Each structure stands twice: as C-alpha cells, then as structure tokens.
C-alpha cells in the first residue's frame, strides 16, 4: 500500500502543473495563492476517488500530457470536457471523463485535448507526490515556486504518485456544466471610478474572451470600458476573480497566479462559483456579466458546497 507509482512524461502538454487549493498566508510576501483554476472539477475528481478534497492533482490546459506508468498501480479519474485515450494491457481505450480507471505498469494515459474548454484535471487515488510549500502542492510557474521545484511538467521527467490497489470503479453522468454565457459578479471596490453609462454598457454588451488567457489572467475584449477618474489607484492587495480595468479599457480577470498587489481600478468581482465558469470559456467565446447581491453570492457558494457533499449519491458503479 505504501508503494510509490512512477510515471514517465512522454509529452508534457501545453501547461501541466501540480495544483491543489493553493498556498495560504503568503500573499504579504508577494507569493500569490496559486492553486487550481477550476476548483469544482478538482473537487469532483477527488470525491469520486474517495480522496481528501485537497489531494494534489495535475492540472492541464488545452493540450494535456501523455504519461506512461513505469512502476506501480494507479486508480485515476479525468475531470473536465476532455478527449483522452488509455492504453491498458496494450489495448487502446477511448477515455470517459468522470469515470475511474485502474492502470498498471506499462499502461499509458494520453490526454489529447480539452474540448470547448481550457482546463482539466487528472486526479489519482491518494494523490501525486512532490515538494510542498506552506503545506500546499500548488505550483506558481511564473515565479518558479512550489511543487515540482516550481516548474510545469517537463518532457521526459518522472513524476510520482501514491500507489493504490484496484478499487471499485465509479462514474458520474449528466453533469451540467460547460459553456455558460452569463457570469455573475458583485460590485468591485472601485466601481465608482466608472460612469453610470459605462457601467450599464459593461453589463448590457457582450464581452469576448481574447487569446490572452492563462493562469495569471484572462483579457476580455470587444467592450471597452474606461474609468473616468483615474487609470491608477494606490496599489492595493488583489484577489482571484477580481476584474481590473487598465488604461486601454480592456478588462483583465485575475487568475490563480495573479500578482499580489495591483494599481488598476477594479470594477467587479466574479463570484467564487462563477470564476471556474469564466476561466473555462475558450478564446473567442462571447458572454455577459450579471450583477447579483453579496447575499446571493454567499448563498450560491454554500449551495455549491452542499451539492458537492451530496454528489456521492449520484455515483454509478461501473465494475
């Protein structure tokens, strides 16, 4: 049971990294929280494997990794809208998301791409193994800090996970999730930097997700909004999901690896439950923002957590 499974990286993917809920109590040192971009998919992956919620997983973006098991066994699940193949016992199988699989030595996980979305997760029973910081296995790639010595997955490297014996296979069906076109927000700390008619336009007109999207932030285009007072504020702490508006008027949604301090006015904050929906929208996708009250945002947060707690009731036994 205490054995370690080793996986060789045959393809590293576009941006694959170890992530969990993120690094706490470090923002005052300039170290951002990092952590998974889509906490919902990450949690579901761990729930379906009967892991602790915060068990480290591999997050991949657009093009995923190809991994070969060189020793040990693995129960795994891939969450997201993802096209992948498994080679189990030399047999090629088309993979199903939200379904657990058991793999042995020489088996291969080939995560080809995300479909109509940006991020997916490879979770394994009992988690991946790497170095941690402040108790977290997240990776801040642009700062070279965190798991995997601060690096994204590298071609040809060997990664480790806890071995597990074959457990019952489960799957989850009919998860309604992808391609939201309404993103809910609450008022941001500097909404008063904008004219009422511009705030109106912010909510009434569609934005487009630009190609400029990554773990640091997502640039929104096709609905320029300019603050009327000043483009700069006294730099202050910033948080994931905050929408800041730089001088050119194209807003930036702050991602998990955002800088810890920023000097642009912030018009709205995306509610925690909708952040994951926004960052999954592919480049070119159009959407609108909708303002809700803080109380509604809090209710939504509690409701989603409750839904996750009860999700085990929806598991189907596969074999």
């Amino acid at each position, binding site marked *: 049971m205490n054995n370690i499974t080793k996986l060789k990286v045959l393809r590293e993917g576009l941006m694959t990294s170890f992530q969990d809920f993120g690094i706490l*109590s470090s*923002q*005052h040192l300039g170290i951002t929280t990092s952590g998974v971009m889509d906490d919902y998919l990450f949690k579901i992956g761990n729930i379906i494997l009967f892991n602790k919620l915060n068990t480290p997983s591999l997050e991949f973006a657009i093009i995923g990794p190809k991994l070969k098991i060189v020793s040990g066994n693995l129960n795994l699940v891939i969450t997201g809208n993802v096209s992948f193949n498994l080679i189990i016992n030399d047999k090629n199988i088309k993979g199903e998301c939200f379904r657990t699989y058991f793999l042995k030595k020489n088996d291969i996980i080939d995560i080809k791409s995300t479909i109509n979305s940006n991020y997916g997760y490879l979770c394994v029973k009992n988690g991946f193994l790497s170095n941690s910081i402040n108790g977290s296995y997240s990776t801040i790639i642009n700062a070279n800090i965190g798991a995997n010595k601060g690096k994204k997955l590298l071609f040809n490297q060997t990664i480790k996970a806890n071995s597990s014996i074959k457990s019952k296979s489960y799957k989850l069906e009919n998860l309604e999730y992808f391609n939201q076109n309404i993103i809910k927000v609450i008022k941001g700390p500097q909404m008063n930097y904008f004219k009422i008619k511009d705030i109106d336009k912010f909510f009434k007109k569609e934005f487009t997700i630009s190609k400029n999207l990554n773990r640091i932030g997502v640039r929104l285009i096709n609905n320029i909004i300019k603050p009327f007072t000043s483009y700069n504020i006294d730099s202050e702490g910033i*948080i994931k999901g905050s929408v800041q508006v730089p001088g050119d008027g194209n807003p930036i949604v702050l991602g998990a690896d955002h800088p810890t301090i920023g000097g642009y006015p912030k018009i709205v904050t995306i509610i*925690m439950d909708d952040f994951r929906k926004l960052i999954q929208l592919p480049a070119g996708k159009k959407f609108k923002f909708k303002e809700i009250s803080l109380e509604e945002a809090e209710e939504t*947060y509690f409701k989603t957590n409750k839904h996750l707690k009860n999700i085990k009731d929806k598991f189907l036994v596969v074999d």
Partner: protein
Amino acid sequence: MFSTYYQTSEQSYLLNYGNFINIETNKKVLSHFKFLQKKNYKFIKNIIPSFNKLIIQFDPYFKKETNKIINELKNNDHIVSFDNKIHKIEICYDDEYALDKNIIEKILNISFADFINLHLKTEFHVFMIGFMPGLPFLGVSNFKKNIPRLISPRLKIPSGSVGVVNNLTVIYPNECPGGWNIIGKIKKNLFINLNTFFSPGDKVIFKKISKKYFLKK
C-alpha cells in the same frame, strides 16, 4: 484606525485607512496586519497589507467570527513598535543599469548626478512587499515633480533593477515585465528560500557604488 471597510467577495474584506501614501497611514495598516498575524486565526486565509488598505481573506463559513475581529480592530488604535531594522543597500547608478536616466533628467529637469544625490538622501520606509515575490515598495523621496510610469512597460526588466515612479522606489528581485523608470541596480538577492529580505516597516538607505566595484562583487 480605518475609516471604512467593504466586502469585495464572499471571502474577503477590504479595510480602508485613508487615501494618502504616507508612513503614518501605512503604520496603522501594518499595526493591524501584525496584530492579526500574531493571532493566527485558522479561518483567516490571507492578510495583505498595502499603502493604506488591508485585505482580509477568510473562510466564508466563518463570516460571523471575521466580523467580530473587524469590530475589534475598529476599536484598536494601538500602533505596534517596529524593529526599525535599517538596511544599507549598495546600488550602482551606472548608465548601463540606469536604463531610464534620460527620462528622469527630462522630467525632473535636473542632471542625473543631482537626482542620485536626492535618491541617496532619502531614508526609505518599506510600505509593503508584493506584486511579485520579495518586491519592496519604498518611499518617500522628495522629488519636485511627479514621475509617471513608462508609457509602454518593458517586457523584461533585469533582476535587481531599481525603479522609480513619483516619490516611490521599487526593487525587482527577479526578471519580469514592468512600467517603472529604471535608475540603477543592486546585487543583493531579495528573495531566497521563500524568505523576503525586507519586511514592511523596515528602513532602507542606499549606498552608491562604482561599476568597477559592482562587477567585482
């Protein structure tokens, strides 16, 4: 000590201590920051001090407890004592490192040598660490005019570069993009093994060194 506070998300409060960048206001922010840090509440996930604001990130299931703490802070106007650590940092203002020397001369309408003298005269207060790991925001210098950010930010600022905007100075611990006017470079590594060299509330004095000495070190 804070005038208003505002919930910016399901899990964060922004406390506002004023709209000025000065040491007095910042010491209020840092006093509350240090107070909370010492208490080490499990449900507080992050505390981020800046010039005149404090962000408190909390577990939404502990909003009541967080509100209680904020009420407590409201009545707490105790300014903590700072260690008053004074760091002497060697800086080289050679043309090779002072990438924006000409801009500074033009904006302030003084020679770069005079600018250096002004910069060396300041005993800097560390307002906060942030933007990137280990980056200190220092102030306050007494330049006669405001120095704006670069119109188009540099894509790559060499690590150790010292930049100014208005009466503030930053030091970039690592290579990164940025819009501050670069006036020199230091050798000291400001971020090692997840530790920052400076802490908010510290003092910094720059000491000018020649390029020859800088390269030798």
